[in-house]
């Protein structure tokens, strides 16, 4: 007897809050637009019908509890994980045609930092695509890489083997690698995870620089307290998009409750964050 697996829980139709139209945001070309994207690992879907439009020049925070699919969202956009369904457009064209306009900053733990390369060589990897097949990294490329390390404030560590960098310095190295790509859309997976205060400041400054230069960044973020401070827009994610839009409109107690559900500890954190935002009446 062939039994069909029970139908997945119908995702509650999410209404993105209607936003007051802002001139800059009504660009016909979203930096990233995701339509009806569903992603599954093995048998279990981990992202349901994600719809998302990211206007160019915005800093977007992706927020949600552990296992909400935040990293999966980024990886699925980048074709690192197959999508079950859905369409992803980067500046109006499929991602495959737009790779050169997208830079990825993976989670720091995703690589072996004991690898025998220097910080500078890691940053130069961001240029490999431009250098092309077979050709070696030249002095000019190393200069570009060094300049990127300067921008993240660790140019003096360029020759150091990457295992001798602190966590924050490793994160900065990854950011520098994305910077040399000179992309228009940056996808960052937890860049603020376990970094020191100075690195956090450096990353925030970098994000603001990127925005000032008209670039777009999508950042997976875990610290609810800093969301309002760092990001113009926020995506609240828990297997589906609970809400997305301008931070001041969307980052509300109600939406956070929907996103985090009964996770008490996180809710306390959220409540604190909100209390800080708007003093209790």
């Amino acid at each position: 007897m062939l039994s069909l697996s029970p139908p997945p829980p119908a995702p509650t139709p999410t209404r993105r809050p209607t936003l007051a139209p802002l001139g800059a945001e009504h660009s016909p070309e979203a930096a990233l637009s995701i339509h009806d994207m569903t992603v599954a690992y093995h048998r279990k879907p981990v992202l349901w019908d994600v719809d998302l439009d990211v206007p160019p020049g915005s800093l977007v925070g992706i927020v949600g509890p552990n296992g909400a699919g935040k990293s999966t969202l980024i990886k699925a956009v980048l074709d690192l994980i197959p999508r079950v369904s859905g369409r992803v457009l980067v500046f109006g064209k499929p991602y495959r045609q737009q790779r050169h306009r997208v830079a990825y900053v993976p989670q720091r733990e995703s690589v072996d930092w004991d690898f025998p390369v220097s910080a500078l060589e890691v940053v130069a990897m961001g240029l490999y695509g431009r250098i092309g097949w077979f050709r070696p990294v030249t002095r000019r490329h190393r200069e570009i890489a060094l300049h990127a390390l300067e921008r993240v404030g660790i140019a003096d560590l360029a020759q150091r083997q990457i295992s001798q960098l602190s966590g924050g310095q490793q994160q900065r190295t990854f950011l520098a690698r994305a910077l040399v790509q000179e992309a228009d859309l940056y996808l960052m997976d937890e860049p603020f995870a376990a970094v020191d205060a100075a690195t956090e400041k450096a990353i925030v400054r970098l994000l603001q620089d990127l925005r000032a230069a008209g670039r777009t960044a999508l950042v997976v973020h875990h610290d609810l307290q800093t969301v309002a401070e760092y990001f113009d827009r926020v995506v609240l994610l828990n297997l589906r998009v609970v809400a997305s839009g301008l931070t001041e409109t969307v980052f509300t107690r109600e939406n956070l409750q929907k996103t985090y559900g009964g996770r008490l500890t996180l809710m306390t954190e959220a409540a604190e964050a909100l209390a800080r935002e708007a003093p209790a009446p």
Partner: protein
Amino acid sequence: MLGVVLLLGLLFGTGPGMAAASSTEPNAGGRRWFLQASATITDRSLAWPTAEQWSRVLRLQDYNTRVVVLGTTLLGLAAGVVGSFTLLRKRALMGDALSHAMLPGIGLAFMISVAAGGTGKSLPVLLTGATLSGLLGLGTVLAVRHYTRLKEDTALGIVLSVYFGAGVAVLGVVQRMGEGHSAGLESFIYGKAASLVAADTAVIGLASVLVIGVSALLFKEFRLLCFDASYAATQGWPVVRLDLVMMSLVVVVTVIGLQAVGLVLIIALIIPAAAARFWTGAIGCAGTWIAAGMGAASCAIGAAASALLPNLPSGAMIVLVSTGLFLLSLLWGRERGVILRWQRRRALNRKVRRQHVLRAVYEWSEAAAASQPGTLALTVPSVPLPALLARRSWSARELRRELDRAAKDGLLEWRADHTVALTKSGLTEATRVVRNHRLWEVFLITYADIAPSHVDRDADAIEHVLGTDLVAELESLLARQTALPAVPLSPHTIAGVPASGSNSS
């Protein structure tokens, strides 16, 4: 490839080394391993080589020795290069599964060749069989990993043992077929470098050049793939195809190494790559070159040793030599050698202890001076031991030992009444140490949010590794603060300590 083997066989087939082999072998391209293998089963003698044998081998006087050593050296060179990449891609065991999976292919190729009317001794046929079944084994690993939820190590274990077991069974059947020459097949298991003939060396040479050439061309791509494959994919690099190319290089090295090293031990050819890690950290392709050099050296020495002691399988000798090099690297490696690290650590510990002593003496003197107004600060009073003992959690013995050491280096003097006093150079050093320590403490307090990105040690430890540059930087940073609290400004003019303290007032 097969054509090349035959062609070279014809070209080199008349080399002087071939004469002996050819006399008992009907084929012109006869293989000595078939001939010698039967002898080794009964011959268990292990005579120490005579001086003449030594000199013949070491001076590469025999044509055969030259062929064998050259062939294995080239093999080691290629294996070192490929080994570096497989090690960094964390695919070392994949190579092991691959080589073990080659055994049934060798046996089956022999059977098919015999059934087809051949002698079963054609090396290209055997190696083709080995390659095919090795690849099949590799495919099985990938399939098990992909279609079941078993982890890769389980998949590797299954494939390695199942294929090797099947291979042993096939060889058993082959031997019962009584085709006579089948006994030589076993030399593929443990390796017999002496069986290499000029044609084999030529093939090994060509294959090595190919492998090294491809690695050099794709060096940048391989590095990216090994370090961060998903990032490589986002940049549009064909990760799967690059992986396939890398794996093909492993297959090539395994196949050409099968005769000399044998399929059980071929995985040991990544030992040089592991050893290289102790010599170099970030210096680009240097690690690959070191690995290639060590691989070549261990293969050459191992093959020569096996030539001297003909009953020791060359595979084992090569592994032993490369293990020796590995141990040397482990101990004395310039980058991560155990001894070097131990020395560095010991030096640091000594430095820390020395500075603790100096600081204790200095601070006691300072307190004593403060409690007696009118006395000129730091006129080098002598310090009683109990007072020093109370300043830290050290035992009397530890303290005494450190004081003795400092006295020996001329920083302290023992006085007759069992007290100690700083000498002139001791005072200079103590002032510097205390100064750095206090600067650092102030810095940590003032710039607590910046400091952790610069250091990850507490104030007490960091003073011992502070460079003069950083001290100068701290001073200029702190000059803007109200005052430097209690940073020693020595009334003496001390050689070696610049009067830098004065710029803070």
